[in-house]
């Protein structure tokens, strides 16, 4: 198995009492609540945490994109990726950017260009993540969510062509049109950097990502354990229907992780911070999470029927533990969770989020150290040299 440390870079010093007066921690949260003196220090703290993970032997360190929110301070993740690339010079550390939000862009060629630059700067160590952005980012970008899927697919196709076809060439699309497509620099990794598709899961995305011409790893993010397993199974079924067996390298799991000396200590230390992630930073009404068109009308009806999409309901640590949306405990417990997940799904890509919500620096560092020393060596070998992926039914 491979382990990629992930960070959202939240504004963890947010005045929660003040922030709670607003509709959401996204888009409408006044930016006067961001203090640059505090934030500037946070960037250093978070970059150091990712560097610590790289030094401790994680296979990669990941960044991602979010806009107009205290939930994550990386509207331009490639800037942070660039720093990490330079600070890991000479190391084998991969730098996955797990997700530029393609539909939000009016010129997707900037992603082809910037990723190509990062691929050169890192001598071929980047992973190119493509996402649609979350629903509320159609409020912050103004892009019409009705065209989210169309723009994602068109931007993806354009970027792949911009990396793989000799330029210059002409591109005529529905949302994007370019007389000249001619990517300088070309990518180091050929035919192009590996692509990951982080997602909360939809049958449509799984069919598309698993297609034989793509075989993109599907990284299921922040989901209850049964959803992780269900979507991995769907991916494997989709691959089989398309004539091949999915490998564990195509199955990813992104999840907050916290390790401490004992289960009891880990849960006690993590509780306020993980609750802040789910109850504060992720708080938004349905109208912001699911703008029209972000999901199909059919899915929207199903969500409204079950109220499943509502992120307004408060979750306690107990709920979070029951759902398995968080991996927390002693090194032995965390190891066991990973072994179980691997045994059930065959997944070989794990993306532990090393900091979450308001978790302070010293806790991140302690957890990282315990993970690297007492968990990582024992779970690394899972699935290595093994044959085909098992399914939950077996």
């Amino acid at each position: 198995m491979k382990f990629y440390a992930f960070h959202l870079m939240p504004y963890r010093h947010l005045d929660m009492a003040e922030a709670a007066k607003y509709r959401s921690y996204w888009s409408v949260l006044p930016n006067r609540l961001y203090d640059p003196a505090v934030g500037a220090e946070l960037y250093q703290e978070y970059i150091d945490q990712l560097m610590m993970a790289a030094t401790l032997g994680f296979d990669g360190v990941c960044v991602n994109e979010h806009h107009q929110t205290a939930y994550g301070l990386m509207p331009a993740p490639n800037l942070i990726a660039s720093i990490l690339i330079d600070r890991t010079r000479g190391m084998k550390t991969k730098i996955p950017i797990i997700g530029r939000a393609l539909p939000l862009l009016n010129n997707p060629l900037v992603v082809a260009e910037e990723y190509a630059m990062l691929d050169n700067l890192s001598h071929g160590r980047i992973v190119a993540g493509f996402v649609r952005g979350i629903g509320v980012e159609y409020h912050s970008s103004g892009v019409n969510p009705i065209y989210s899927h169309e723009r994602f697919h068109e931007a993806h196709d354009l970027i792949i062509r911009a990396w793989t076809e000799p330029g210059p060439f002409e591109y005529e699309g529905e949302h994007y049109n370019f007389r000249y497509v001619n990517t300088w620099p070309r990518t180091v990794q050929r035919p192009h950097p590996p692509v990951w598709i982080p997602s909360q899961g939809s049958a449509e995305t799984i069919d598309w990502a698993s297609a034989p011409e793509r075989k993109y790893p599907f990284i299921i993010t922040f989901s209850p354990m049964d959803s992780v397993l269900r979507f991995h199974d769907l991916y494997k079924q989709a691959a089989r229907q398309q004539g091949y067996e999915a490998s564990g390298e195509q199955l990813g799991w992104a999840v907050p992780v916290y390790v401490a000396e004992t289960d009891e200590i880990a849960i006690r230390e993590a509780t306020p911070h993980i609750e802040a992630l789910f109850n504060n930073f992720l708080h938004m009404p349905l109208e912001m999470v699911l703008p029209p068109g972000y999901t199909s009308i059919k899915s929207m009806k199903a969500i409204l029927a079950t109220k499943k999409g509502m992120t307004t309901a408060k979750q306690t640590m107990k709920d979070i533990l029951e759902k398995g949306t968080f991996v927390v405990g002693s090194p032995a417990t965390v190891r066991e969770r990973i072994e179980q997940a691997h045994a059930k799904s065959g997944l070989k890509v794990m993306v532990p989020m090393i900091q979450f919500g308001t978790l302070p620096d010293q806790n991140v560092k302690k957890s990282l150290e315990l993970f690297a020393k007492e968990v990582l060596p024992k779970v690394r070998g899972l699935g290595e040299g093994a044959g085909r992926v098992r399914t939950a039914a077996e």
Partner: protein
Amino acid sequence: MASFKSENLTILGANIHLRRAGKGPPLLFLHGAGGVNVWFPFYEKLAESFELIVPDHPGFGQSDTPAWLRNIGDAAFYYLELIAALKLAKPHVVGTSLGGWIAAEAAVRDCAPFGRMTLVAPAGLRVAGVPAGDPFIWSHEEHTRALYHDQGFAERALAAPVSPELADIQIKNRYAFARLAWQPRLYNPDLERWLHRIKVPVQIVWGNDDKLIPVAYAQAWLKQLPKARLLPIANCGHLPHVERPDEVANAVKSFAREAAP
């Protein structure tokens, strides 16, 4: 109470649902973003004097969502096709909110098929420094409340039972509304440059307590349509035809009578 006749026809490959009521000169009513879920007294009053035609816009209600419907301009051209297809002779076009915007977009393209126009709190223009409400971020309840001055209307709307069919239509309407109005939010920056092409008489009706599109927007319309008449309605929200059906229906009727030779 449903004293209208439903019919379906195909225009530009799309199945379109419309309602007809009454006799008289033709009046084409273009609904707002919420669609036509209730046959309001306003329609009954218009049907006393006109041959009233109330279509569901493409993408809304019981009409198809055709692939060609991509933006507000497509809806505008479609209505020019509809007027021709129904052989309506210079209809009085009444449009509210989104429907007013579509009517104006159609008329700047070609106002020859139009008789007169009554625009009720039309969307479509922007006024710098006077933000409109954001129906895409509001909750259903906030949105409903923001539509009315008299909160009794909001209470009744919120308390009304929602059948599964109506719930489906509400989602469909919201998706179609986003398709046409998400970005720029409720306006087309090009529209005001071409409003002068509307040569037919225009009457603008606006509630003075409109929390979705403030009444200050009426001035932007008058600036480009200096001959237009403004009828402000006191103690009224974004849906004057619902809150003040008599007043608005009478205004439409008397405006239409002026056209008579």
